[in-house]
């Protein structure tokens, strides 16, 4: 075992974290507006499969990414219509999105199952910079979207905390009645952010497809990454920048089983090691729900509750 393996695992973790960051940024935007979308897993799958199918028939990465973003928009619009418009239970609606998205992605992906990726997102070429020890693979070994994702996290952080619509968004999750009384439209703010969030989630799936997955397979493409992204939102205490750190941590746990397998290190059977990311996520969730941690977290106050204007 050489230390290089762990360095590469770490670099891989940073790369895989891109999906987690994108998905959890989407969830943060959604939840900050007071709506929970548990359908992340379904969104990821749908983004991945539609991207794959479009790329397969057109060979155009950009078109594929665009279509998968649009799919995310449509799916999250369904969630928004159900939960904001029809005031359906957000949790059940989110689960329905998971089930619906899983089924539909299998249906759509059936013809392309097992085919190799038609296009691949490759790391940028930084020339000699990539050869710098440690810094090379960790900082300069990634593709364009990974860097853009970091920028996006910073941008969203600025948006949330330093801009007028960000202020309104935070208020909508905490005190929708206040926003309503100010003449803001709670429904419009929620619609916009649920949809923007959905677009990010499904883009996360498409990116994963083209940058990380080997092929589309119906069962194992996302493997619960969507759920880990949801746990990550809590871990990041609904702050975009903190999602990066958490995503790298979770990305590491996702990557370790692969490294162990690739290096044929068999401390434990692979099926046991495969439980590792979920158990770590669970442990983190538990640590975050101690009363002390809870005080520091600050979830949007009225998360998950439909807003109905009180007219006697």
């Amino acid at each position, binding site marked *: 075992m050489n230390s290089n393996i762990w360095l590469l695992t770490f670099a891989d973790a940073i790369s895989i974290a891109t999906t987690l960051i994108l998905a959890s940024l989407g969830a943060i935007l959604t939840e900050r507006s007071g709506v929970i979308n548990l359908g992340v897993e379904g969104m990821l799958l749908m983004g991945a499969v539609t991207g794959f199918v479009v790329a397969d028939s057109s060979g155009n990465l950009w078109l594929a990414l665009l279509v998968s973003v649009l799919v995310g928009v449509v799916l999250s619009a369904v969630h928004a219509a159900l939960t904001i418009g029809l005031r359906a239970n957000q949790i059940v609606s989110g689960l329905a999105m998971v089930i619906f998205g899983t089924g539909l992605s299998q249906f759509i992906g059936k013809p392309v199952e097992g085919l190799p990726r038609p296009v691949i997102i490759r790391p940028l070429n930084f020339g000699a910079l990539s050869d710098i020890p440690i810094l090379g693979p960790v900082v300069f070994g990634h593709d364009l979207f990974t860097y853009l994702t970091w920028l996006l996290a910073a941008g969203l952080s600025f948006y949330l905390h330093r801009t*007028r619509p960000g*202020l309104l968004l*935070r*208020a909508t999750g905490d*005190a929708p009645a206040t926003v309503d009384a100010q003449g803001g439209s709670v429904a419009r703010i929620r619609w916009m952010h649920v949809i923007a969030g959905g677009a990010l989630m499904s883009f996360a799936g498409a990116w994963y497809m083209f940058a990380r997955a080997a092929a589309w397979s119906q069962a194992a493409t996302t493997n619960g990454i969507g759920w880990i992204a949801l746990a990550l939102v809590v871990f990041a205490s609904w702050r975009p920048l903190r999602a990066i750190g958490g995503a790298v941590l979770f990305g590491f746990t996702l990557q370790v089983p692969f490294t162990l397998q690739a290096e044929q290190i068999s401390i434990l059977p692979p099926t046991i090691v495969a439980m590792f990311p979920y158990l770590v996520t669970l442990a983190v969730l538990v640590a975050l729900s101690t009363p002390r941690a809870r005080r520091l977290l600050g979830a949007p106050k009225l998360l998950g509750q439909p807003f109905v204007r009180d007219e006697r």
Partner: protein
Amino acid sequence: MSQAGRAVAPALVARGITKRFPGVVANDSVNFDVARGEVHTLLGENGAGKSTLASVLCGLYRPEEGQLLRNGAEIRLNSPRDGLSQGIAMVHQHFRLVDRFTVAENVVLGHKSLSFVLDNAAIEERVASITQEFGLPLDPRAVVGELSAGERQRVEIVKALYQGAELLLLDEPTALLAPPEVEKLFITVRAMTHAGKSVVFVSHKLGEVVDISDRITVMRAGKVTGSVRRGDADVRRLAELMVGREINIVPRRAKSPTSDVLLSISQVHLEREGAEILTDINLEGRAGEIVGVSGVAGNGQRDLAEVVAGLRMPQRGNVTVCGVPTSRAGALGARRAGLAYVPEDRLGTGLAPSLSMVDNLVLTRKRGFIVDRKSALRESEGFIRQLEIKTPGPLTPTRKLSGGNAQKVLLARELFAVSGARVLIVCSPTRGLDVGAVEAVHALLDEARDAGKAILMISEDLDEVMTLADRVMVLYRGRITLEQAGIDADLDRIGRAMAGLAS
């Protein structure tokens, strides 16, 4: 008009406003106007329609009929935002603030002319200048969740002023304030009228509005029943206009209670997360008396009630109910010892809102493996007849009942259905009820008192405490700072104690 001689149109005129809600006409052809620089008070009992009128004036409600004129020109308001663009703003009784935001963030939230990127320093400066101009001491950087009720109200007022309000509607602004804080509010109101702004003061507290108002308009049952100018205001006359009949101010009964101590609280001390909530509380409740505990909201009233009810365990001290120590016995233990509890939050704590009256009567009974709903059904039918509870039937969910009828269900259970309960805690028993219901609830409490129960009544409504209690206490920052017999209760001293100014 106070601006004598000049033919200036009033700042706002409402003509023939009618607003209906399912089953009620909240405003019935109401006329109302307010001039520049004037304080015009809307006075009326709960449910008289004054808050509805204020909501119409600020654009929150759209009336079915009627007309609004702003400075002589007709306007149409479809939302509070329209109201704001006309310079009309309302400060609601329940503050609409974001607890996690700072004062400055709350003030600018939703403001139209705000730049896309927030310039916090400039905003804070602007907020500070408004607070200074109108005598509203506030730190723009303070987090609203940590402010007192009075300070939060100031935030609401600053917010309205920041948005350029020329006409402010204050809905029950003194409800949550201790008397000295009311004085501060009045100073601000005067500063605003001096600056040419108009203030509409919505209140049901007769006593305090006489001083501040230039005019008082009284409403009852959705209609205007009269209007008086400063100087002509006669408290008795106003009270009659409010209630619609002659008022007899009943002298406090001087029946001496028996000496049986049924409830005793000694040296109770409660902490939560390191903060002291209740300090050294000593209190006795005797058979046949009502002990009234008053105070400004948030001074430990609720915690006191919960400690006695067994829902919270004090760190030190003892509570005994009918001789049985209950401070460690939990809610069930306290009930078994003979305690009944009517919490402030009727639907949501005292009653399960989606459950029927029958199921709610079962709540505090001892239940076997199978729940006996048959006898509860008979009991409900009895209560519906005796207490004249208006409900479609005993199986209707309690949330469909009006506040007064829900309270009757709750009182029926706690006073009569629970066998052997001799000690009763009631919290704000008439909050939000209309006049008729208030009388019915007070009558029930008096009846229970005369039947020899010991009643601990915790209420922020000083009038209620003064009319019902045989002994009056004031709770301030978790301590009992004043205790007086009901007959010689001195309003002035009580007010000072509520504000923490007692010696």
